[in-house]
C-alpha cells in the first residue's frame, strides 16, 4: 500500500496537525518506508488468532466471571467522593495558557 500526499493531508487533518509542505513530503517518504516494513505481517495467517489489546486480555482475568467483573485488574468498590478530591479551580487553572479565573479561555468556537 502506498501512502500519497493526499493521504498525508487527510491523516494530518484527522490528527489535528497542519504540517508544512516540507514536513508533508518527508512524511510521505517516512510512512512509506515504515509501512513497507510493516507489510511483512501479511505473511502471517491470523484469521483464527484473537486480537490482544491489553496484557489483561490474557492475564489477570477470571474466566468464570462475566463483563467487567471478569477483569480482576479493574475491579474496586465505588468511592463516593472519588479516590482523590477535585482540585480547587485556581489549581486546575494554574497551567492554563489563558483563563478568566473561572474558565479556560479559547478563541471563538462558532464564527458568525
Amino acid at each position, binding site marked *: 500500500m502506498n501512502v500519497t500526499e493526499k493521504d498525508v493531508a487527510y491523516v494530518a487533518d484527522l490528527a489535528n*496537525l497542519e504540517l508544512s509542505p516540507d514536513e508533508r513530503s518527508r512524511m510521505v517518504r517516512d510512512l512509506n518506508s515504515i509501512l513497507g516494513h510493516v507489510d511483512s505481517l501479511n505473511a502471517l495467517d491470523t484469521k483464527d488468532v484473537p486480537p490482544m489489546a491489553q496484557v489483561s486480555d490474557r492475564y489477570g482475568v477470571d474466566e468464570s466471571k462475566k463483563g467487567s467483573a471478569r477483569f480482576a485488574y479493574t475491579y474496586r468498590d465505588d468511592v463516593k467522593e472519588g479516590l482523590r478530591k477535585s482540585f480547587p479551580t485556581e489549581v486546575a487553572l494554574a497551567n492554563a495558557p489563558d483563563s478568566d479565573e473561572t474558565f479556560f479561555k479559547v478563541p471563538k468556537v462558532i464564527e458568525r
Partner: protein
Amino acid sequence: MDLTGLTIDSARAAIAEHKTSALALAEAFYAKIASDDPKIDAYLILSKERGLEKASEIDRLANKGANLPPLAGVPVGIKDVLITKGVRTTAGSKILGNFVPPYDCTAVARLEAAGAVVLGKLNCDEFAMGSSNENSAFKPVHNPRDLSRVPGGSSGGSAAAVAADMAVAALGSDTGGSIRQPASFCGVVGLKPTYGRVSRYGLIAFASSLDHIGPLTKTVKDAATMLRTIAGRDPMDSTSAELPVPDYVAELDKPVKGMKVGVAKEYFGEGLDAELRSSIEAAIQKLAKLGCEIVEVSLPHTKYAIPAYYLVATAEASSNLARFDGVRYGFRAKDVRSLSDMYRRTRDQGFGAEVKRRIMLGTYALSAGYYDAYYLKAQRVRTLLTRDFEEAFKKVDAIVAPTTPTAAFKLGEKVDDPLAMYLADIYTVTANLAGIPGISIPVGVTKAKLPIGMQIFGKHFAESTILRVANAYEKAA
C-alpha cells in the same frame, strides 16, 4: 569516602552510621552535576529545594537515632515523563515546556516516602519516543562512556546519570525497551517489571498498554530495592495488579542451581554484532557454570515484533497525545484565527518531528479502511508473540538474550532514518507486547570499551526469578 560512587545500601548505611549526612550527600551530587553534566546533559531540571528539604528531614531522623527507611537519603533522578508536584515536568517536549504538575506520580511518591531524595528531572526523548535521546526537544544526552555516542533512549538521561555517578539510582519508563536499551548502552542495570506490577499513575502516557515504570541502578540489588519500593497495587491505576509484593531483596541470594535458562535462536540471528554475540555467549556459559541448565527454546514470531509494536504503540500514542491542544496546560500558539486553527498550530509548533511521525502513523493505522489491515492485524500478532513466550516458559524459568543488536551508536548516525532507529529496539519490544518482566545487566565491553548488555526475561510477575539470575551473574562476574 567517594560519596557519588555509593550504592543504595552503602549510602543509607553511611548516613545511619553518621559517616556523612543526607544533606552532605545531596550537596555532593549537586556539585558533581554542576561539574560534569554540562558535557553529558542528563538533567533537564534540578529540584534542589525539594531535594534538600527531604535530605534535612532524613538528617533529623538520623540525628535522633531513629530507624531509617530503606532509601533514607538516597539521591535519585526521575525521568521527566513522571510528573512531580510543583517541579516542572516537560516530557522532553516544548508543548509541556512550562508545565508544573499539581500532583505526584505514585512511583515518585513511594520513593520519597521510603526516604529518597529527588535531585531533579532527567532528559529523555520527547514523550519517550526514541532510541537515542536525540528526540529531546531541549538537548541530546551524551553517553558518559564515550561522549560522541548516544546513551540510548528513551530513558537516556536516567541511564547516563547513573553511569556518570550523578544519581545513585533513577526511574525510567519502558514502552519498547526505553529502560533496558539505554541501561545496556551506558553499562548499568535496567529493569522493566511485569505490566501491572508498578502503578502508571502520573506517568505521561505514550502507549498505555505497553508503558511501564522501572529502575535504573548500579547493581542488581539496588534494582530489587527500588522495585520493592515502587511496586504494588495503586487504586489510581486500574491496571495495577492486586498481587502482594514479594521481598525481592530477601530472595536475591536464593540459589540458581538447577534453574532452567532458555536461549532462543531468534535473538542470535543476522544483525547481532559479533562482539556482542561472543560476550553474551560467554555470559551464558557463566550461568551454566553457576549450575543453570541451558535449554534451547524457540520464539518463532520474533521477527514480526517490530512491525506489530510500531503499529500498536503509535495507534495508542495518537490517541493519548490528542489531549495536547493548548487549552488546559502547556504551550499555546499565538495569533490564531479560530479554535481549530489554535489546535493545529499549537500541535505543529509544540511537537517535534518524531512525535508527529508517530501520531501520523498511528492515526493512519486506526483510520477507516486501514484499521483491520494494520491495527487489528498487529493486535493479532501480539497474541502470537505472547503465545511464543507462554510456550517457551512451559520449559524454562528464564530466557536470556542480547538487549541490543549493537553497542551505543554515534550521535547523528540514525537520525535521518526512522526505520533504522526503530530496529534498534528489535530485542526489547517483545517483552512490552507480552507484558513480561525483563532486566538488562552489563556483561562486558567491546574493544572500543563500549558496554554490552544482556537481557533476562521471566514469566509474568516472576521478577524475583530474573533478579536472582542477574544477581548470581553479577556476583560471579
